[in-house]
């Protein structure tokens, strides 16, 4: 199973977990798998049309999946998937 690293701002929607093991053979399947376990997290990650939200960056290892096969990028048991949100620090 791939490992998804949950960034600080989203942890409260994922039972305060910092890492979650995810089933699936693509980035999208892995993220769908973890968001099925945490419905509140699902709302943060996917828009109403079911697409991954555009202000989040998703990385496979150190590479942005936009430069690979986007959400269809393949993952293996050793893959680390990072969700990187925009953070501004201080007040919004």
């Amino acid at each position, binding site marked *: 199973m791939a490992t998804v690293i949950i960034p*600080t*701002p*989203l942890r409260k929607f994922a039972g305060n977990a910092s890492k979650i093991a995810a089933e699936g053979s693509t980035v999208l399947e892995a993220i769908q798998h973890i968001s099925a376990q945490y419905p509140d997290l699902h709302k943060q990650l996917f828009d109403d049309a079911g697409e991954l939200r555009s*202000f989040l960056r998703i990385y496979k290892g150190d*590479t942005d999946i936009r430069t690979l096969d986007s959400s269809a990028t393949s993952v293996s048991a050793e893959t680390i998937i*990072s969700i990187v949100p925009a*953070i*501004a*620090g201080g007040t*919004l």
Partner: protein
Amino acid sequence: MSEITFSNAELARYSRHLIIPEFNIEGQRKLKAAKVLVVGTGGLGAPLLQYLTAAGVGTIGVLDFDVVDVSNLQRQVLFTVADVGKSKVQAAVERLQAQNPNVHFVQHNVRLTSDNALEIIAQYDLVADGTDNFPTRYLVNDACVLLGKPNVYASIFRFEGQASVFNYRDQTGELGPNYRDLFPEPPPAGLVPSCAEGGVIGVLPGILGSIQANEVIKVISGVGETLSGRLFLLDAATFETRTLRVVREASNPLTGTHPTQTSLIDYDQFCSVPSNEDAVYLQEITPLELASWRNLKVDFQLIDVREEHEYEIANLGGELIPLATVAANADRIALDKKVVVHCKGGKRSAEAIQLLEKQFGFRNLYNLKGGILAFADQVDATLAKY
């Protein structure tokens, strides 16, 4: 660069730089010739300004519009108790000038806006962004791109930090990515919590601001490899670090294949910050009115949309429904009487009311103006302020 000279006192001061073989007096000359603008004198700005001052950057612009507040002292280590209430820029420059009299400081006691950003940033070689909100992040980025200035970036949230170098042209002339390549658009207001809700561990801006200072020195001196094209991530809670690759995007409106943006825009609108016009329709109640409702035994419901740990610090006895769970708990909110909604300062409760009005048709909601902090100021001085 050889026209830049140093007094013996300066040579003694900077000797630990001069004896680094690849840095030497040439690196120090570049620092002395450089003009750096530091935007924000807060948690990131404090170590950034102190290290750039100590390192001997020739001209440092210090920009902030705020005054020192007692809640800043937990992380903004430039300031002391005696500075509370003073202009941040003035307090910072007084301290920094004493630290290194050789540095020329320029005070910008203003808020950076689309009207003044180009004029101010044009006076500098590079910008270090230590701001605390999305509109200013995009403003600094866009102004730097339009003017061709490198933007040394760091950002923090709770235990998490990010750093990078944007819009940096390397020695071969290759232009690196900018903030819009990494984050084409900001999160919608309310979806990702702001730091005012989330807080930040005081040491974290110290770490990230120091990394920023190091990147500024590398950009100026040309020594080492900058974070251009890379995003550094630190989770200070677990001490896991990652460095991810950032690439230029063809769709970037400023530097993509078909640029569509050639000037600065309205960044509050871009980041969906509610304008005053939106707020006109919000029913409000002042802390004094709330106190009189209580005294007169008016039948109303009080809802607190802060987080549980905030409730523990201080509360008004309201029902706790954190903002993120308001929609799921809409059935707990009365329809048949007045309902006062409050948070710490009034922003989150306004968001909650807008959501409840829009999605569920509530018309009986009142926002407590200034939140529990204003209530503590105006009605109940025994409440803890945080």
